[in-house]
């Protein structure tokens, strides 16, 4: 019996395979294009001056981004210090105490809403909450905005990681007479340590590139971080301002800053990817 050659269908299949591979290639090409663009334009700006000098006004050479880098680091660390304990507590509730309770469901939903919320709305929220009563832009407002963004990310990853810890560890600890809180902090956290750190790193990566929430909370400053109750220099708003300016040396600095952020965020992301890979789903 002669089999009818299914050429048409095979052809379509071949075509679709090619298109799919093409789509993947397109995605990779865009990634490469972006990274190449950032590296090509930013590499020239990665001089020691960038890390040591303060910004100079337009027309004055030798400016750097030192204060912006420090400001971003300080605000990110402080936001982490604020968001991580709260996030861990929330994660503990979601995985240990609440589980399927109404509060837990609501919290999980709210966490997703917060994570999907445009960060500029959070900036507006913190502006009305902190900047107006305080009477000025401040690093604290910026930290608050960043912390609000980080908090649900830490909470959700903490919940997922804590759930993975086997019950036997819990029961062993309780059987030894330890109170619940000690079992959680000393045993479960230690067991889930890698995953929890990953969650924190993910949140930090997410927040390092945020500009919109800082636009009207921390504002920016051309000086060193002197006090968090004042407008605080930061890398992202500086890049925004410099990029929109017509001055080539400022634009060069903007690229340098962009390269720094990109490298940092990509490094953190890849690190978390590889550490999460070993975790069973």
């Amino acid at each position, binding site marked *: 019996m002669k089999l009818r050659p299914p050429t048409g269908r095979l052809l*379509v299949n071949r075509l679709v395979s090619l298109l799919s591979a093409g789509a993947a290639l397109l995605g990779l090409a865009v990634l490469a294009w972006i990274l190449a663009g950032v590296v090509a334009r930013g590499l020239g700006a990665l001089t020691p001056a960038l890390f040591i000098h303060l910004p100079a006004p337009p027309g004055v050479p030798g400016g750097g981004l030192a204060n912006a880098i420090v400001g971003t680091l300080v605000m990110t660390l402080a936001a982490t210090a604020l968001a991580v304990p709260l*996030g861990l507590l929330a994660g503990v509730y979601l995985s240990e105490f609440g589980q399927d309770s109404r509060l837990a469901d609501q919290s999980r939903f709210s966490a997703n809403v917060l994570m999907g919320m445009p960060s500029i*709305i959070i900036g507006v929220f913190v502006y009305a909450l902190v900047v107006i009563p305080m009477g000025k832009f401040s690093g604290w407002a910026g930290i608050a905005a960043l912390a609000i963004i980080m908090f649900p990310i830490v909470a959700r990853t903490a919940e997922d990681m804590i759930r993975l810890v086997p019950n036997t560890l819990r029961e062993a600890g309780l059987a030894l007479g330890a109170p619940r809180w000690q079992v959680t902090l000393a045993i479960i956290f230690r067991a889930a340590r890698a995953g929890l750190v990953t969650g924190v790193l993910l949140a930090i990566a997410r927040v390092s590139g945020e500009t919109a929430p800082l636009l009207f909370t921390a504002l920016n400053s051309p000086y060193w971080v002197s006090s968090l109750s004042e407008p605080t220099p930061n890398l992202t708003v500086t890049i925004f301002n410099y990029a929109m300016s017509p001055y080539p040396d400022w634009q060069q600095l903007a690229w340098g800053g962009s390269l720094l952020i990109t490298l940092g965020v990509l490094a953190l992301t890849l690190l978390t990817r590889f550490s999460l890979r070993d975790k069973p789903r």
Partner: protein
Amino acid sequence: MGIGPGMEEAPGLERVHAEGASRSAKLCPRGKAHFREDAVFKGLSIGGSLLMPLLVAAILVELVWYSWPALKHFGVGFLVSQEWNPVTQEFGAASSIFGTLVSTLIALLLAVPLSLAVALFLVELAPPPVSRVVGTLIELLAAIPSIIYGMWGLFVFAPFMADYVQPALGKTLGFLPLFQGPPLGIGMLTAGIILAFMILPFICAITRDVYLLVPRTVRESAFGMGATTWEVTYQVIIPYGLVGIIGAVFLGLGRALGETMAVTFVIGNAHRVSASLFAPGNSIASTLANEFAEATGTLYVSSLIELGLVLFLITYLVQMTAQFLVRRFYRAWSAGL
């Protein structure tokens, strides 16, 4: 034992526990202390968890509160008015909402087919090591911060659009009002295309999971009947996973709606509804980013916050739909066959 995740307290045991607790409290002071400490700990964790719905509620309340003057003054007409005149304090959200929707639509039109194709490649067509590497690289697109997309968009991609793509489109499809106007480079089309690549990894990741969750037996039976990979995908996997895929699309939609910096850099900042994709426009997020710090006058600030409220509500609804769909899909199909 009633303690531990996933194990619920049997009704009778509560009494036993209470008795046990009080008994241990009577028996040893350390037990009493533990009881107190645990109560504090649980309370703190409840507080931490409660913070999240509280924040969402607080944001909503605050947005409504501060947009009240504009809500009262302009009413529903605000949503369709194209006015944006800080001189006469007449404001309307039409151009911002239009820009948000159009740029998002362009992004979805480009990203959804691309994501489905990439997910197909990663799941069915690529050998596992290639799939892993390419998959990680695609996910890196999501890791790149918005401002970097903005920088690249303004300095690299927009000139490319202005010099090559827009003139070509204008020459071939210029009879359509969509592609008329000078090739500025910056504008709605450029913003939409950049958004597409920003949301691609999100839609792709969930679509990948959806593909993988369709039961093996279903897929294999289709293959067994002689279907090609494409036919299996098109006629079996996608229908089965439709709910999940739509959920993924909604998630991407949510991201695109709120994207601020990338759009602000390249959309051109014009309060105008235009038929042409080459024209500059604005989105709700870009309007806020550009004008919030400088707005004077109660109505101006209030109008801006009302824009924020609109964005919050749209994002909230989209999020709700996305979560509902994705959860429904996972619940239905993660049981497997």
